[in-house]
């Protein structure tokens, strides 16, 4: 067998081997590679002219009889019918506009939707579909092109053969094998040109009559042949009315011809004789080849018959195509050709022995997964167009077959060709080797990444487990710290949080890790899910001892809502274990949506104190007076109060709250060594207002801090030392009094809450270290308790009133509530 030459026409993405379909129509090649797109490729121009995008991956394709419409069966069970763009004219246009035309096919073009649809074919303006439902195959016939929904003409059913008997392996089952539908014409029913009858397989009249019966042959009806995945080959005449059986009963038009007992890949006709193709061929996936030929009526006068001959070729057979005398099939490793002999009517008996000697020749082209119909060009050589597993569109040029069989010596003219062919096949093998190498590399890469990820995760886990230890002052190997800052952009100030991810571990954080920062507004009563936001920053690469700064806004569309809790975490998505350009989907397709690792890092709280702007540090004009009201409203809404009240109350001058803390305590905790009371006050204020600049130049120099709250109100925070004489039995007590004063209730409340929180954190593990407990005077304590109790009573009264009075008196009741609040805050208990 002569060698062939291979040309690469184009290269597409990877193909899903079981659902690749190619249709060659003149110079246009329709390609479905198992994705959502159907490409129209012009073979002459070697480019894609049109792309049709469907809603789901396309599993089967067909053109209508007149070639104006394309039918596509998609994985969602929809059969789409879309008019073809004028391809002939587009090739003219193409010279002007080289860009592809993208047609998106919407669900408006669905003509049929049935999830059990397996295959379809269009013959003589009849759409034949095959669907499998509960182990019954049913053929449905519809009018084409019909109204929508299509008018059903008929329906026949065949039961499946139980696949257990056929020992079809699980692998074969999982590989989606679709049934094969072919239409075979009796000769002469085609009134169209030879070109077209080329596209439709037909059989010589004698064999047609023998196989499909007198009736179909008298009516000249095409016959639909179907190769089912369970190996059955059945047929029914398309255009014959339901006929009466020999006993006058109705008989099913479907006949089972044979069973190959393996999934059928191809059914077609071959071996052109004097009156047309003489042979019906069916090929199974595992290499069984069935040939049906007619036996001549011999002289003894036995009735004419047809013979079934089964042969074997090396499987698995992926795709098959035929021309007049040859059958081409692709196993994954090679493309083979089988040559058949023609039987002339004179030599009828000798055929059997010849058939036994059926041998296949290798063409040396590997990994072909789909073949279009071969076509013979005017010079007589045969061209095959196929697509390889890696998505390459290739054209195989076969030299004209010599009738003589083997060529004894290589003529010098062919030597060059031979060398070329050898090079081509080397190229093919190289391609395979390369792909294997590539795969190995990918695997190693993935393993390396996995190792890294596990290292980092265990490090993070250790940190988490030994939190206590790290709290003592040692640094986390990987940590994230944040500072809230005001930044001004486009005349607009906004509060941002700058987070620094510090990698002080020995590991490198590779690509694939993501820093996630989740911001929860604490005050929001409504569900956390909706109000919390997550920012994620994919890391490119963070070497050890490197830092990464990220800045996130703290304001949302609803305005600023303080305080907020910020959680930092590192996540790793497993899918980035596999390099994105990995050719095979492989393991990564098993990953679910949730395939990721998430390790929590630090968390921090941003409160009103963080958001304060000290007077002097900013220009007055920048403060947003316009948004003052917004801020207050936001806060109050968060607190559940109504906006109306805040207006009334804030008018009545500045509001102040007090917090009293034992000076001794504070000094001990804050390690303040100074003795003068004013300096103590300054350092406490510094600790409150700008804790991060500890040890550097103090931003606060006096015991009074004037600042602006985020909503733009001016706020005063004052600290002074007072001596309470009657509280402690051991004598007067030095107490630091922090006073917050502002016209904005929101600011006062927020700051009060923030200061208390800070103190709470500071004094959390105080009890252990407290050197001596103070003896408190019971009387003063009782007084304080009584005071609070009376306030509580007032509160209850107010509540009752509100509950009874209904909505009309909210103004009044809120006023009462506000008064109680102020009283409570004005005379606080001392924190010891």
């Amino acid at each position, binding site marked *: 067998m002569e060698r062939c030459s291979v040309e690469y026409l184009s290269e597409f993405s990877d193909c899903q081997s079981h659902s690749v379909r190619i249709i060659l129509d003149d110079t246009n090649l329709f390609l479905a590679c198992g994705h959502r797109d159907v490409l129209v490729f012009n073979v002459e121009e070697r480019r894609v002219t049109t792309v049709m995008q469907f809603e789901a991956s396309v599993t089967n394709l067909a053109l209508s009889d007149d070639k104006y419409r394309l039918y596509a069966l998609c994985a969602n069970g929809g059969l789409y019918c879309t008019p073809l763009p004028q391809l002939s004219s587009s090739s003219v246009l193409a010279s002007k506009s080289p860009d592809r035309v993208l047609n998106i096919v919407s669900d408006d073009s669905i003509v049929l939707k049935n999830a059990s649809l397996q295959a379809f074919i269009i013959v003589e303006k009849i759409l034949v579909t095959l669907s499998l439902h509960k182990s019954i195959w049913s053929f449905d016939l519809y009018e084409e092109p019909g109204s929508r929904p299509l*008018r059903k003409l008929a329906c*026949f059913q065949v039961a499946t053969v139980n696949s257990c008997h056929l020992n079809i392996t699980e692998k074969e089952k999982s590989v989606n094998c679709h049934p094969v539908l072919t239409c075979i014409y009796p000769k002469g029913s085609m009134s169209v040109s030879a070109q077209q009858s080329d596209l439709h397989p037909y059989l010589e009249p004698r064999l047609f009559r023998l196989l499909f019966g*007198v009736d179909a042959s008298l009516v000249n009806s095409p016959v639909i042949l179907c190769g089912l995945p369970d190996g059955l080959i059945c047929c029914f005449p398309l255009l*014959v009315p339901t006929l009466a059986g020999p006993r006058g009963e109705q008989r099913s038009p479907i006949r089972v011809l044979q069973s190959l007992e393996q999934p059928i890949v191809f059914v077609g006709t071959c071996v052109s004789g004097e009156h047309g193709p003489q042979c019906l061929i069916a090929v199974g996936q595992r290499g069984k080849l069935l040939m049906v030929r007619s036996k001549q009526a011999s002289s003894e006068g036995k*009735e*004419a018959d047809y013979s079934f001959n089964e042969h074997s070729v090396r499987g698995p057979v992926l795709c098959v195509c035929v021309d007049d005398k040859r059958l081409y099939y692709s196993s994954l490793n090679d493309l083979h050709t089988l040559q058949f002999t023609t039987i002339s009517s004179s030599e009828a008996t000798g055929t059997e022995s010849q058939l036994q000697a059926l041998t296949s020749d290798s063409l040396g082209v590997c990994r072909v997964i789909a073949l279009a119909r071969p076509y013979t060009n005017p010079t007589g050589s045969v061209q095959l167009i196929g697509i390889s597993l890696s998505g390459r569109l290739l054209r195989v040029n076969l030299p004209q077959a010599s009738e003589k069989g083997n060529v004894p010596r290589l003529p010098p003219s062919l030597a060059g060709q031979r060398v070329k062919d050898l090079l081509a096949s080397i190229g093919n093998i190289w391609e395979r080797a390369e792909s294997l190498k590539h795969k190995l590399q990918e695997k190693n890469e993935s393993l390396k990444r996995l190792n890294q990820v596990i290292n980092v995760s265990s490090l993070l886990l250790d940190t988490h487990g030994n939190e206590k230890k790290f709290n003592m002052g040692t640094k986390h190997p990987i940590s994230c710290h944040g500072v809230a800052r005001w930044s001004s952009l486009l005349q607009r100030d906004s509060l941002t949080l700058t987070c620094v991810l510090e990698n002080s571990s020995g590991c490198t954080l590779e690509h694939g890790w993501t820093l996630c920062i989740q911001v929860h507004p604490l005050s929001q009563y409504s569900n956390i899910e909706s109000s919390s936001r997550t920012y994620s920053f994919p890391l490119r690469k963070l070497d050890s001892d490197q830092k990464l700064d990220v800045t996130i806004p703290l304001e949302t569309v609803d305005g600023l809502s303080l305080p907020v809790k910020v959680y930092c975490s590192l996540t790793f998505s497993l899918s980035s274990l596999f390099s994105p350009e990995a050719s095979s989907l492989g393991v990564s397709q098993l990953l679910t949506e949730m395939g990721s690792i998430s390790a929590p890092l630090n968390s921090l709280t941003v409160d009103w104190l963080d958001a304060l702007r000290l007077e002097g540090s900013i220009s007055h004009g920048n403060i947003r007076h316009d948004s003052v009201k917004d801020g207050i409203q936001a806060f109050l809404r968060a607190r559940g109060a109504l906006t109306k009240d805040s207006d009334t109350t804030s008018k009545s001058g500045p509001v102040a709250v007090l917090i009293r803390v034992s000076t001794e305590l504070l000094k001990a905790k804050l390690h303040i060594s100074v003795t003068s009371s004013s300096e103590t006050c300054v350092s406490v204020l510094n600790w409150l207002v700008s804790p991060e600049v500890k040890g550097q130049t103090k931003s606060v120099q006096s015991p009074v801090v004037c600042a602006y709250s985020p909503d733009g109100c001016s706020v005063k925070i004052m600290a002074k030392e007072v001596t309470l004489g009657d509280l402690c039995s051991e004598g007067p007590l030095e107490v630091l009094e922090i006073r917050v004063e502002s016209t904005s209730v929101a600011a006062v409340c927020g700051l009060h809450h923030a200061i208390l929180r800070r103190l709470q954190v500071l004094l959390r593990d105080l009890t252990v270290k407290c050197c001596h407990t103070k003896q408190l005077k019971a009387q003063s304590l009782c007084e304080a308790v009584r005071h609070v109790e009376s306030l509580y009573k007032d509160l209850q009264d107010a509540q009752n009133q509100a509950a009874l009075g209904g909505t009309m008196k909210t103004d009044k009741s809120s006023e009462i509530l506000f008064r109680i609040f102020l009283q409570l805050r004005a005379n606080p208990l001392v924190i010891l």
Partner: protein
Amino acid sequence: MSTIPCLVDRWSEENNNIILTWKQNEVNIEPSQDVRKRCCSESLKLLQKIQGIPAATERLKLEMTVSYNTFLFSLGYSNPSEVEESLIHTLLRALEAAGSQVSSSDPVKLWETVLQTFGTSVIVPYVYKLLLIQWMLWLMHCQLERILTLLTQTNHKREHSAPVNLLTETRNLALSMEEDSSLMVAMAAKDLKDLLHICTVICQGVEQMKMEKYSEALEAFQEAKGLPSPRSLLAQIHALTGQSFAKLGQPHCALHFYRKAVEVDCACHSALYQSALVFRELGNSKAEIEALHLLYSAVQLQADKSASSASLVSPATLLGGEQMTFISRVPSSSLILHTLAHTCVFNGSISDGVEHYLDLLASLQSDGKDLVSTGDGTSFPRIPVVYLEAGFALLKAQRYSDALVVCEEVITSTLDFIPKRLLLDAVEKQKSDSDVILENLDFVLWAAAAHLLQAQAHWKLKDTKEAITNFTRAINQLVKVFIKQKDWKQKHLGNTEAMVERMVTLEAAKGQALAGRGCCFLERGQLKEALRDLHLSLQMTPGCKNTKMWLTEVLWRLDRREEASAYWREAHSTSDIPKSINLPLYLQALPEDTAFDFTDLKKMGEYIHAKNVMT
């Protein structure tokens, strides 16, 4: 809080807009399917939006109305099971909103809970709308039992001891159906209920007919007639009534109702077809041909315009595929044409018959989709038989060359299937083989009949030589069948009716071929061969008057006058040949065949008279 009433208003408006679009389309002369599809998808989107938020009692009215509209629109596009799923989903949401616990998702139980929960609330008209959808879905699947249960549940006042009957239950059904003008619907619930009512009654009747309880079926149809119904449906009811009467053995009542049906709706094909069947039964061939002819033209006319109904719910969709095919069962146009042609030829109107046969052959060759097997329970004769019948008709119409061509087709196509010899042994015959044997027998018969017809054509063309060749070929084919038993006509162990019938045909064909060849020999003057063949023919078909006449002639010419006179007398004593129904059409002898040219009639008469005088 305050946003929700807003949404409800917006959604209601959206719903009303969809319905307005639909209504506008509906009144158009040529309603477009696209509009319906668009309405369907928009309505579905709206429903999805509404069902995107938790159900609440104040939104139930809107949700149920939109569901109702969506289901009506989507009926033509989606699977009934999908609609049912969606319906159950809506019901579950409604129950959730009302705070009821649902134990199972079985529709019957679910409806029980729903009706108990909402039975007295303000949204009951909306619940009933969904109930109509459920009724419709079950009706489409012909689940009358479930419908009955469902409808019984709606009736709270009914005392439970009374016998449950679907007819009375639907008649007494009182569903409050007031419409809300602010929430528009695609089809008024009352209209839908009326349609469902009549279709349920018809469905019940058809079920009774299927169980062969015709009087009960008549009762249902009587009920159906009293209900308001579209024209075409009324015609179908009349036709069904007629069918029941026909089954009850009252053909004239049946004909009366068929006529009524056609009067109401001239497109009621099944009535025409059924009346043709009744006419055949009554032996009124002229009326039968007329009915068939009307039916054929009606079917042809309808094939041209395949009208798609604009209405959302048509009786055809409600009665489901199976029911509807039962109701309006009409054979395919090709089968009607064949029946018409066959009846014409059989009853002697040859020229019409020939035209119909030629039409039929032409349509077999060209008409694509009309020929597709419809699986409607009727079966078409085998194609070679149609060819033979056409050949026979052509022969009788004296278009001999056409007849020759048609028969040639049969001969070439059957050639490969004819066995060398066919041994029929009823005792040994395996049952499993019988179909193959019968089929082979058919091939032999067809080939022989084709040769026979060809021979007759040649004979008529006065080409006796060619005729004798073809008669011989026919005989050669026929004698390939050997019958091992003598008394094959008795139904034996293995001799099925089909086999006996074929045997009779075979013998008749043999008789005809031999007689024909005998006549040809007679014409050519080969009297001995003629005598042999005619004798054999008489053995095959004893009592054939024609053969006896021919025999008389041969014997007379051979100067064997005694025998001749014996056959003469015998021939005169046998009555005219009875038309044997069992024979296929192409082997029937028509009256004109008996137009025997008795040139010797006079001398025969004279001879017999003389003989009588002598004795």
